[in-house]
């Protein structure tokens, strides 16, 4: 069954220094992407409390995207390295609880990768939609 | 022992029999096992890709599928066949829609596992220059050879693996190893007009003329080629060209397998040197090779 565009709800957590700036760059370049993503600004992916992601799914988010600086580019030197460890573990655990792997994604988007951000959102949207439509 | 699927192509079974024979001779000598693809069909040459994309991909795909099933890489001495095989392989890989259609049309699956390599690469790169050197019986001392690569084995860049697109050196290195002298010239990859050989012959004549003239100006004794289409333009049309540009040309054009065959000690009959329009024997005799 085809789900309506409107029904898909994605929460995005973007680090302030790279990905949030990258998403701003997407705007400057007028790259269109699905409006289903609602962005929450966090200082660094290292700030990403796994509880917040669990809460997001619990509250009914269809998808979650966490995006930060490329490894080595972190504004705080190593915050994204910690996130890079939390992500696979959390994804695996969520999957064990029945949260489909297509619903939870992470990406690296730098401040200059406006186009990439649009691509990432499109990809996440497509995956979440695939999950919604095809189970 | 090297084992590859062998796609001779139409030209090698007619106008370029000598290329086929010398290829088989040389490979036997070097202990390279050429497995001819049974019931291979024409690659589509210069016509299929300007008529329909699907035809251009489907014709070579049949041979590719066979080679893949045997777990072999595929080679062709003919640059045109090589180019069509390689481009079909690349296009099918890049375009999933085309891949689907091709598989439908030929009724078989293609996984893209087989690598398409021109015979020059099989001999010079895979077999190895050093190994060839070890087998040389007669050094080709004093022979100035212009290596002519043409379009189809060098372009586009995806085709020209491990060599330079604009100034390929693969055959030049072979010539050096055989004891002859590769001529430094810049028309190595210019087009001879093969596609128009029969239809717009005047263009083929002009382009081939430019190449022959340049080779002559650069002091080449003979031109070495790796493609039957180039060969027929440069060799069979040479008398017409000479008349057209009013220049004495008389440059023998040999296949690289024939040159290699000479170094390996075969005589002119073995290598069917008599098939050429421009008789290479006087030159080779003068240089003491025959």
């Amino acid at each position, binding site marked *: 069954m085809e789900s309506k565009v409107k029904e898909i709800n994605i929460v995005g957590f973007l680090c302030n220094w790279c990905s949030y*700036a990258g998403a701003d760059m997407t705007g400057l370049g007028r790259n269109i992407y699905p*409006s289903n993503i*609602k962005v*929450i600004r966090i200082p660094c992916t290292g*700030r990403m409390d796994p509880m917040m992601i669990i809460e*997001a799914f619990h*509250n009914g988010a269809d998808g979650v995207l966490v995006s930060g600086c490329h490894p080595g580019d972190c504004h705080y030197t190593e915050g994204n390295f910690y996130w890079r460890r939390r992500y696979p573990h959390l994804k695996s655990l969520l999957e064990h609880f029945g949260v489909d792997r297509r619903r939870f994604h992470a990406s690296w988007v730098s401040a*200059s990768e406006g186009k990439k951000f649009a691509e990432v959102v499109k990809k996440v949207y497509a995956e979440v939609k695939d999950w919604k439509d095809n189970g | 022992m090297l084992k590859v699927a062998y796609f001779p192509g139409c030209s090698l079974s007619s106008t370029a029999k000598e290329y086929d024979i010398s290829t088989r001779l040389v490979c036997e000598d070097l202990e390279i096992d050429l497995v001819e693809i049974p019931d291979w069909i024409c690659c589509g040459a210069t016509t299929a890709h300007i008529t329909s994309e699907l035809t251009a991909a489907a014709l070579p795909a049949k041979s590719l599928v066979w080679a893949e099933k045997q777990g072999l890489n595929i080679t062709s001495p003919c640059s045109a066949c090589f180019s069509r095989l390689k481009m079909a392989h690349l296009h099918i890989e890049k375009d999933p829609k085309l891949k689907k259609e091709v598989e439908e049309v030929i009724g078989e699956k293609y996984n893209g596992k087989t690598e398409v390599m021109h015979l020059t690469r099989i001999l010079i790169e895979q077999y190895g220059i050093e190994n060839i050197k070890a087998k040389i019986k007669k050094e080709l001392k004093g022979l100035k050879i212009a290596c002519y690569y043409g379009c189809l084995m060098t372009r586009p860049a995806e085709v020209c693996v491990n060599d330079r697109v*604009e100034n390929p050196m693969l055959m030049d290195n072979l010539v050096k190893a055989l004891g002859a002298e590769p001529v430094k010239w810049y028309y190595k990859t210019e087009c001879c007009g093969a596609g128009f050989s029969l239809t717009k012959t005047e263009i083929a004549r002009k382009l081939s003329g430019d190449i022959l003239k340049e080779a002559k100006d650069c002091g080449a004794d003979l031109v070495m080629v790796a493609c039957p289409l180039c060969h027929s333009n440069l060799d069979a049309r040479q008398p017409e060209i000479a008349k057209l540009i009013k220049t004495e040309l008389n440059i023998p054009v040999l296949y690289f397998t024939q040159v290699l065959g000479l170094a390996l000690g075969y005589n002119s009959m073995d290598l069917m040197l008599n098939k050429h329009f421009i008789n290479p024997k006087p030159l080779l005799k003068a240089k003491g090779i025959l």
Partner: protein
Amino acid sequence: MARIGVFVCHCGTNISGVVDVSRVAKYAESLPGVKVAVDYKFMCSDPGQNTIIDAIKTHNLDRIVVSACSPRMHELTFRNTLERAGLNPYMVEMANIREHVSWVHSDNKELATEKAMKLMEMSVSKVRRSEVLTKMFAPIEKRALVIGGGIAGIQAALDIAAAGYKVVLVEKESSIGGRMAQLDKTFPTLDCSACILTPKMVAVSQDKNITLLTYAEVTEVSGFIGQFEVKIKKKAKSVNSKCIGCGVCVTKCPNKKSLSDFDGRLGPRKAIYTLFPQAVPNVPVIDRETCTFFLTGKCKICEKVCPTSAVDYTQQDELITEKFGAVVVATGFDIYDHSSYGEYGYGEIKDVISSLQFERLISSSGPTEGHVVRPSDQKEVKNVVFIQCVGSRDESKKRPYCSRVCCMYTAKQAMLLKDHYPETQSYVFYIDIRAAGKNYEEFVQRAQNDYGVVYLRGRVSKIYERGNKLLVKGADTLSGAQVEIEADLVVLANGLEPRKGAKEFSQLFHMSSDQYGFYNELHPKLAPVETAISGVFVAGCCQSPKDIPDTVAMASATAAKVCAIFAKEKMEVEPLIAGVNQLTCSGCETCYNVCPYSAIEMKDKEVKRGEVRHVAEVLESVCKGCGVCVGACYSKAVDLKGFSERQILSQVETATMPITNS
């Protein structure tokens, strides 16, 4: 109960063209705690800000949400607005409905409006949980570090020093001067590059406020604005301070095996050398990789001939650590290496040279003393072909950008050639002429009209070496004709690209760079010299290709920025840092382990009467507010001000709720 005001910005038509702003404002009014919601044309303008201040006064508001552009753009503006209205500046949140909505969802206005409403609602939820924060201050080390001694670094150092602050200028070569020192003349005035650069170089060496460290590199950086701690490696010059720059050692050195990079590898360079005659400092260095003494242990001629015994083979590399309040990065550019152009001979045809090599050939201090001759046979030239856009505007070489200066310098070089050799003929192959600058277009016209340079519109397809001539095969697309030119020399207009190692260098500061390696400015228009790292500024071609006047202007701008920091007594720092609730801390030391700044201290402390526990404490002056500790804490005892668990959780809850009564 919070009293929240919501202000929705039209941003001209930037937002209102896509988002129904009045609907956003109306929806805001329906949210609990929102006392007033208005929309206005330009929220960031003076009248816009005054609207907020008035609303705060009339409605007695204590929290504000501004639905407008990115907080990275105007969060500070609105914090100041709140301050002026007498509120705590951290009681404002921005909903980014421009960059994140109107500019990227223009395909569906309905959905865009709904998203704008949602983002605004999320900000309302967040601001409802905002807490009053007090500003913090940090000391400033009033010394600037300038990295790179080209014209950008020189200008920045001189300007900062002129304001009375100390500057350390670090240059990796043995002399300052940079690329400009390699040039012969400059466009569009044709004045001699050395004549205008040398006085500035001397000024640097004489300025008491400037410490010049040549033959030195920055190796490590830590700290932050006001308090950078930088490690600098001073490479061993093998010549000490007794040197008077007489140059005898250079003259007598028998080793001229290596080629001079400064001269585009067209001439030899001694093992002991100065970069060029006007070098500053005029002290030679020994290249230990080629010096006969360092290779074989024999020679020592330079030591013998030196009148002041300044040669010291025992010198060692030295690592120094210094503190700086601000940094100017001016590391310059490299020219594109044309050996990837097979059609132009893979860089192997000797008479196909780069533009920088041409500068050295025609420079009177160059390897040929100003004679333009063919590198292959030293013969003079007659026909010269210039090819533009080599490594610029070329997607297949991953260099799709325009290098901005090549059109101009090609015209300059063709004119100089005609000046030196009136009998020569130049041909320029171009795609488009980009001469946007004062007197630039006139300059290119002069090259064509007065100097007879033939301009052909088309890229060259191939260069053939034929005999001792070069056959250039091109086209003129305006006439639709193919062109073949027999040339003696071909000069490529190599594009500009970042220095090799630019990427690694940017990571020292955690600066971001674009896909080519040029450093990113903070904002492409409004913050062109700032970087995302406060206190680090960029000048010159390391940011993007540009000409000398732009570079100098940019350098002076960085100096102004640095001086503005140093003019303050203390540095204001954002109080958005972590804090520990020691009552709930379990003392597991996870936060202590993960903190990138060692800003967490473990203490045995009486947290309740009579209960001493092992707990964490945040060192406020060290914490940078990354929040890694918050993400790692199981006991939920650490929290981050400005991005607290309550705030983010409420954002998450709002984000996942459907829009009510829309």
